């Protein structure tokens, strides 16, 4: 199975998954509870994140590249620039054209963008330094329902199988996407290509449904009765508890400070 985790023997990689999951959730929670425009606090949160990246001996650019997936979601907050609270200011573009924007809205938009980016980076750090089964074990330890964890585990397992299936399908399609000197216009119309893609997706859905039925039958034949069993995790060591408490305390302090700085 394809693995997101990047192998290394850094202290962050070696740390217990429960510690990392808790600290990541605390990081995201406290950061997002901080008020808008608490810029110095955002910088401190960024410093914490960068320290973790360095401690994990990972390339900062590699993490940043993966965070690009959050960009389209940030755009959802873009209208705030124009629909934010009054007063609205005018700026001229291309000489005579004037647009109005809200400086307060702009500040909120940037705050949301920074928070979203930092939160995504923290989540990506977690997945880069922790194997997925370890993350699931940590979630089970904190009482996340076993059925939900089983669904996550199966999704993770079958996502890559479906990915391989898509790859083989696209290979087969590309092998028949040919050109002949006898014709002028090749490639078909946009509508036709969209239909072909739609058919491919539909076919993939049917196969996935059939696979899930076979998988369920295989689970039943091995004694599955709706209950999943996981191995009992060891208790956290004293050092791990100390790291966990200090980490949460530090993040909590940063949030507390933000209440005196932000809007």
């Amino acid at each position, binding site marked *: 199975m394809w693995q997101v985790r990047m192998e290394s023997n850094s202290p962050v990689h070696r740390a217990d998954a429960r510690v990392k999951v808790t600290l990541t959730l605390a990081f995201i929670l406290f950061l997002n509870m901080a008020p808008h425009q608490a810029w110095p606090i955002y910088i401190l949160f960024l410093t914490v994140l960068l320290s973790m990246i360095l401690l994990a001996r990972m390339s900062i650019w590699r993490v940043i590249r993966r965070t690009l997936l959050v960009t389209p979601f940030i755009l959802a907050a873009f209208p705030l620039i124009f629909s934010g609270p009054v007063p609205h200011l005018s700026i001229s573009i291309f000489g005579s054209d004037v647009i109005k924007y809200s400086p307060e809205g702009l500040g909120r938009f940037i705050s949301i963008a920074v928070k979203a980016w930092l939160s995504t980076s923290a989540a990506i750090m977690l997945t880069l330094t922790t194997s997925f089964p370890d993350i699931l074990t940590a979630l089970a330890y904190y009482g996340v329902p076993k059925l939900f964890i089983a669904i996550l585990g199966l999704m993770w397992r079958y996502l890559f199988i479906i990915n391989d299936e898509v790859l083989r399908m696209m290979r*087969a399609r*590309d092998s028949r996407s040919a050109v002949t000197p006898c014709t002028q216009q090749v490639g078909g119309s946009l509508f036709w290509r969209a239909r072909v893609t739609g058919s491919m997706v539909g076919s993939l859905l049917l196969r996935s449904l059939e696979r899930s039925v076979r998988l369920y039958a295989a689970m039943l034949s091995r004694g599955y009765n709706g209950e999943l069993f996981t191995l009992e995790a060891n208790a956290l060591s004293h050092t791990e508890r100390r790291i966990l408490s200090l980490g949460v305390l530090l993040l909590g302090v940063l949030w507390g400070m933000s209440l005196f700085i932000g809007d």
Partner: protein
Amino acid sequence: MNPIIEIRGLSYTYPDGKQALHEINLTIKTGEKVALVGANGAGKSTLLLSLNGVLQGEGAVFINGIEVKRENLRYIRAMVGIVFQNPDDQLFSPTVFEDVAYGPMYQGFSKVMVQERVKQALQAVRMEDYVNRNPHHLSHGEKKRIAIATVLSMQSQILALDEPTSELDPRARRELIALLLELPQTMIVATHDLDLARQLTTRTVLLSQGRIIADDITTNILNNEILLTDHELN
């Protein structure tokens, strides 16, 4: 007779570092039917996928004298029709007609010409009554036939078949071999079904760990028990 396929010093390494082909040199003449035999992981499928540029390694592959490289791929793919091992990978449309029509439609043929090509291709695989059926509901043997029709409709000069008899029951297997024997195209068949190689092809290339170990008349290779045992084919 001029070679229709010419492979010079082809090596291919997968992104995970596994070298699948080592310095392959192979020439196939127009109209030849050649079996590529070898154990699992010998490099048979990799070699087939290199014929139409789906995989591109070091060295050179020429089809009808045209080199397989990025700018020629669309022309190469009209000449080399690959039939994949799993027909489900190849059949993605709601009807047999649309699947068989995909190639000619992409090539930009008129509606009348596309219908004619589909009809001919389905007649060739004796599946003309299935034109409006959903490929998803066909048997494995029927899907294999339709998959062959999808490349026949493009009038490819070369048919590259990857394990064509895998997962077929004896009857479907027998019918498929009879069908392949009727087709006039140059054929390269990757298989570890030695009976298929014996019945269908005149020449056999034995691959092992990405290298050509033997290239001879099919009967000579298949009668060499020691060679087959040494390369896990017996």
